[in-house]
């Protein structure tokens, strides 16, 4: 029998698809049991305190050990309904796994993220088969709540509010739910359309409807919602990309790193996504790393990540930086872009070296040039204030009190659009959960229930 020959293009496409496969393959039952058995089952464990959603990690790991995987997943999801995404995308090395006491004993920390994925995936698969959502709704309250933005904060809010018996309508500007889970996380962290599967699972509780293509400030206003609903939650995230403000920024081949990641995530075939031969990524966060690694996986000859300060100041974790270097991304520090050159299309970028002078970051006047036909900006996101009206805003974020309430009574906010902690999915989930609890308490205060501080104490704006 003749072996079928692959065309060079077909082979290249297959190589690229393979390069985007799962970053960490899931643990099987045996490996999960062995890893779970390493856990010391600490009391009042540091890993719990390091998790923004305060998942009872020793308990869920103990439940893996006792072959109670359903219970394990419930322990996770009770604290964090997006435990599946967090298991894949959380920078665990600076959160739970970084706090694991085994680090102190010169042992490797427990692979909490991988174990969490094991439990949550198990239950999600089961629910996908039998359709029984693991959480039940409280009796209908008759209250209707509106959510703006179907990202992690908004959906976490919606799930918790639905669980508490309220009916929720989510207004989403885009055609798909998920926010950054769907559009902004690296493809190799979220394989097999996981973000959408997780949302299907989450919506399985019932009582949540999503209206797509509805943009705040264009299709509806805050005051519309305030009139129609008993409460409103804003989870709009940071929709605008930062600009460099340098000559040549308008040239073809210069784009926000998030747009590039979004194209990749939405592409049916990764190999069809346009990438440059020489890619320069500007920025020092996890988005910069995600964009740089994925450029390399798409076949770029050189990928250079340039950051204006030193390695230690990068918000990408050491683990992420190592991952980039392992993927042949060159990381250059202490330089900032000064201009982009090219005829209609970018072909190079100039950088000025920087250093700290008198405690401030300043250019030294010394420059260098990098050949670049794709320049990705990962210099941070900004909140787009469209439609927020008179809401109090500080440092580009919506101001909330310790109950997640904005300056307008009855309007709450959470996620990246407020200043609650790190701009992470896990923090957004916590904000949404706590805001739902807070709004629920405010709505039922008539029932003479004493108010309970809903905020985790991580400091509201």
């Amino acid at each position: 029998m003749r072996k079928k020959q692959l065309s060079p293009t077909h082979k290249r496409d297959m190589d690229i698809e393979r390069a985007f496969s799962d970053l960490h393959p899931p643990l099987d039952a045996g490996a999960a049991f062995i890893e779970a058995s390493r856990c010391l089952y600490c009391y009042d464990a540091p890993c719990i305190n390091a998790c923004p959603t305060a998942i009872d990690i020793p308990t869920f790991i103990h439940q893996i050990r006792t072959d109670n995987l359903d219970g394990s997943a419930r322990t996770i999801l009770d604290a964090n309904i997006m435990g599946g995404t967090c298991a894949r995308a959380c920078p665990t090395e600076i959160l739970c796994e970084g706090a694991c006491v085994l680090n102190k004993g010169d042992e490797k920390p427990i692979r909490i993220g991988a174990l969490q994925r094991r439990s949550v995936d198990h239950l999600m698969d089961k629910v996908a088969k039998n359709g029984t959502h693991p959480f039940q709704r409280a009796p209908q309250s008759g209250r209707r709540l509106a959510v703006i933005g179907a990202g992690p904060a908004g959906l976490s809010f919606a799930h918790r509010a639905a669980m508490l018996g309220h009916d929720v309508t989510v207004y989403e500007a885009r055609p798909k739910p998920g926010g950054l889970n769907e559009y902004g996380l690296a493809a190799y962290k979220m394989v097999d359309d996981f973000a959408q599967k997780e949302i299907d699972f989450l919506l399985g509780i019932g009582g949540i409807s999503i209206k797509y293509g509805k943009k705040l400030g264009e299709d509806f206003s805050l005051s519309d919602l305030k009139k129609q609903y008993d409460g409103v939650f804003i989870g709009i995230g940071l929709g605008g990309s930062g600009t460099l403000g340098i000559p040549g920024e308008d040239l073809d081949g210069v784009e926000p790193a998030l747009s590039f990641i979004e194209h990749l995530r939405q592409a049916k075939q990764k190999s069809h996504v346009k990438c440059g031969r020489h890619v320069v990524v500007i920025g020092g966060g996890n988005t910069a790393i995600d964009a740089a690694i994925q450029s390399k996986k798409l076949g770029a000859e050189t990928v250079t990540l340039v950051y204006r300060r030193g390695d230690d100041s990068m918000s990408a974790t050491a683990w992420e930086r190592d991952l980039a270097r392992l993927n042949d991304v060159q990381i250059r520090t202490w330089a900032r872009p000064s201009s982009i050159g090219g005829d209609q299309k970018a072909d190079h970028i100039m950088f000025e070296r920087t250093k700290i002078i008198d405690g401030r970051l300043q250019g030294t006047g010394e420059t260098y040039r990098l050949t670049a036909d794709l320049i990705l900006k990962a210099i941070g996101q900004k909140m787009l204030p469209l439609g927020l009206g008179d809401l109090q805003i500080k440092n580009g974020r919506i101001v909330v009190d310790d109950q997640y309430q904005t300056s307008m009574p009855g309007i709450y906010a959470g996620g990246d659009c407020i200043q609650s902690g790190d701009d992470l999915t896990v923090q957004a989930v916590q904000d949404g959960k706590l805001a739902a609890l807070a709004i629920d308490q405010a709505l039922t205060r008539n029932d003479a229930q004493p108010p309970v501080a809903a905020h985790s104490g991580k400091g509201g704006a």
Partner: protein
Amino acid sequence: MADLSCRIAGIDSINPFWLASAPPTDKKYNVVRAFQKGWGGVVWKTLGVDPPVVNVTSRYGLHKDFKGATIGINNIELISDRPLDVNLREIEECRREWPDRVIIGSMMAEMDEQAWKELAIRIANSGVHGIELNLGCPHGMCERGMGSAIGQVPEMVEKTTRWVREVVDLPVFTKLTPNITDILVPAEAALAGGAHAVSLINTVNSIVSVDLDAMAPDPMIDGKGTHGGYCGSAVKPIALNMVAEIARNAATRDLEISAIGGINTWRDAAEFIALGASGVQVCTAAMLYGFRIVEDMIAGLSAFMDEKGYKTLDDFRGRAVANTVDWNELNMNFDLKARIDEESCIECGRCHIACEDTSHQAIRIEAKDDGGRRFVVIDDDCVGCNLCMHVCPVDQCIEMEPVANGLPHLTWPDHPKNPAHKAVAESV
């Protein structure tokens, strides 16, 4: 290098490690493999009167700990299911081919004098070094009036031992069942019957687990299960105590002991020898890992003896017997306090929660400047129970420190709070 040779009931063995009468010693093939690895002797799987028994499938159930390690096995296999002739011929061959290794013939029969005597003579004629009376098997055979059905009745223990002694001129080991209340009773009966040694313990009656899907005990045979014999690490503490009881009892202290029960390592063996055993028998550990485990048993025991300066096993045999006393002889003025080493502490909180929930609320949590936590022993509340030290996952992080209280040795019978003592004092 230490001399590991031992002599038990007059039988010389190159080392104290024998395989117990069980599946691993079922036939020549296994026994030869064991000898090749270095086992000093074997007790051949129990022989009965023909026709041979018939076994069922399956035969083993496992007891696992939290971390998935096997702590015990339970088995429902019966005695040898091969014809007596075949077994005896193989024993003869092994004796001839391995002259420096010990072979003991294990046997059982119904409570019939002639049956016991005829079987004992046939086995003795195969050239075995000694005969072990299986009076312990707690499953299957006992339902036919054998094994533990005999071992649980002191008169029968004495009788069967005597019957065998009367017809063979070989050392006789009476193997005892732990499924009784006081091990001294059957031990004394064996002694009265003329046993040269006792072997203990046989397996403990058990149901090792229940299959919650099938709603039947494991191992399952066509949907049903039965109680079996429990062995392995988990039974070692029971065996150690029973061996110690016999070793420190005036009537039985000269009875030689072939110790059995959860011996996995050289250390386990050394502990039994320190409590008076002359040799040990192993089964479960070999079943889990193969005969090769004897290599480390030999090397480890030898290294331990060299380290301690013991030249022969007799140099430390029974050394722990005098220190094994009744509770009433313990010093009540001895006091310990837990000491937690902050440097090596990894802040897991296990000591705190164990003490707080289940002991004496003597470990307090304090916040450290670096955001971590410190665990502090409250000496006034610490009773020195050791629990915190045992649950601590870090080696030597928690140590128990004796308190220099200057108080004299004081036992309960002399303690001022002992009501009996008070009554005596008042009556004087």
